[in-house]
């Protein structure tokens, strides 16, 4: 089966709910090594996304994802704004005017989104950023596709890899973003952006489990 336009809409709505349920946790993480706003930023952004979504509900997947990206850009505020916006916009541009897509289309979209984040933020693996969750998730997804794993399981592996990557940010020292001002004091805390991107990929795996 393929991933339908409505599955994409449901995923975005689900993630907005996940942010609503977890914004305090994300803000707490950001309090430890940042400025205590990541949850609030994401919440403001996805509230705006939910308001905007009805205007593009009948459009193609690319348009929907680009609209999400544009909305986040003007609403999120922190580094998460341009970074999340890049993920959604690049993914939307890669998928284009499709009403349904294959899992491999999603993998390409994710790859483009992650490349966009790396170009914009100039961070590398182990800099204690969202990339530490995103890169392993992409690798796992591509591997699963190559191994012929069915969609639901492939997405689950990808989400699990993100989760491992997120946990692995704890002992790292931040080299990018606000947390890098803390230097060694950033060690011992989980990166908020890696946490929210893990939630993003976990919601993908839940919502598209039967695709």
């Amino acid at each position: 089966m393929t991933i339908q336009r409505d599955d994409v809409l449901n995923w975005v709505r689900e993630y907005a709910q996940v942010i609503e349920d977890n914004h305090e946790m994300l803000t707490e993480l950001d309090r430890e090594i940042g400025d205590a706003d990541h949850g609030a930023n994401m919440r403001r952004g996805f509230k705006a996304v939910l308001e905007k979504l009805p205007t593009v509900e009948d459009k193609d997947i690319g348009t929907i994802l680009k609209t999400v990206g544009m909305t986040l850009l003007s609403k999120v505020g922190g580094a998460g704004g341009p970074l999340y916006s890049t993920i959604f916009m690049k993914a939307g541009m890669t998928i284009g005017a499709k009403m349904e897509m294959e899992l491999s289309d999603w993998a390409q979209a994710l790859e483009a989104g992650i490349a966009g984040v790396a170009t914009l933020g100039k961070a590398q693996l182990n800099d204690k950023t969202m990339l530490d969750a995103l890169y392993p998730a992409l690798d796992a997804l591509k591997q699963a596709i190559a191994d012929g794993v069915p969609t639901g399981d492939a997405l689950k592996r990808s989400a699990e890899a993100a989760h491992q990557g997120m946990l692995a940010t704890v002992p790292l020292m931040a080299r990018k973003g606000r947390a890098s001002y803390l230097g060694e004091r950033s060690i011992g805390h989980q990166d908020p952006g890696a946490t929210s991107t893990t939630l993003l990929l976990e919601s993908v795996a839940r919502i598209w489990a039967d695709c």
Partner: protein
Amino acid sequence: MVNILLVSHSYKLATGTAELLHQMATSEALKVRVAAGIGDDHEEIGTNAVEIMEALMELTMDGEVLVLMDLGSALLSTEMALQMLDEETAARVRMCPAPFVEGAIAAGVQANMGSSLQEVYDEAMGALDAKRKQILGEEETPVEEAASVQEKEAITSDGVELRITVTNASGLHARPAATFVQTIKKHDAKLSVTNLTQGGEEVAIKGMISVMMLAARQGDELILKATGNDRQAMLEELEQLFLDNFGE
């Protein structure tokens, strides 16, 4: 005219900085815009790439733009805004890594004089040196060595000199320094200054920063050395400024 965009997480910081800037750079042609804060009234802390993009579109209409940013995500948002602009527009914009407040004011004064984007950028980039020098003293400051040596050679024996004492209360600081530089720019002439009292080197005056380098306080004795066609007229006008205590 080079226009200036101030990108900050805090609307108060950006508008406050713009206010400081306008005190010293008063030309009506100079456009300074802020893109700062987030939310309907810019009340919340954050930056908005869409707002930055709109400001850049407006400011590039009649000139080039220097952008000063405060912290990390202000940079990301500005880069994102540049990515969204067409190449031609983006090519008229330069991001400047100078410290926000110092850089903005140095850039404003330089832009106010109608300088090129490169000159405005360079001036902003040197903005920290004057502060460094004041706090850390001479030795630890990387002065614009090469530049001042070169310029010095250009000043030959045909120059005219003026020995003068700084009498105004704040010395050659901030606003007087700006007036000083603007007066020089009006003339087809070059100036270098030695602060005898502080025992400093001869400094070629190229912008605000070089004036700040003199660290000239009230009571200091200076030697002003002018070359070029308008040297006499320039020195006379400068002398008048000192005699008028720079209007203080």
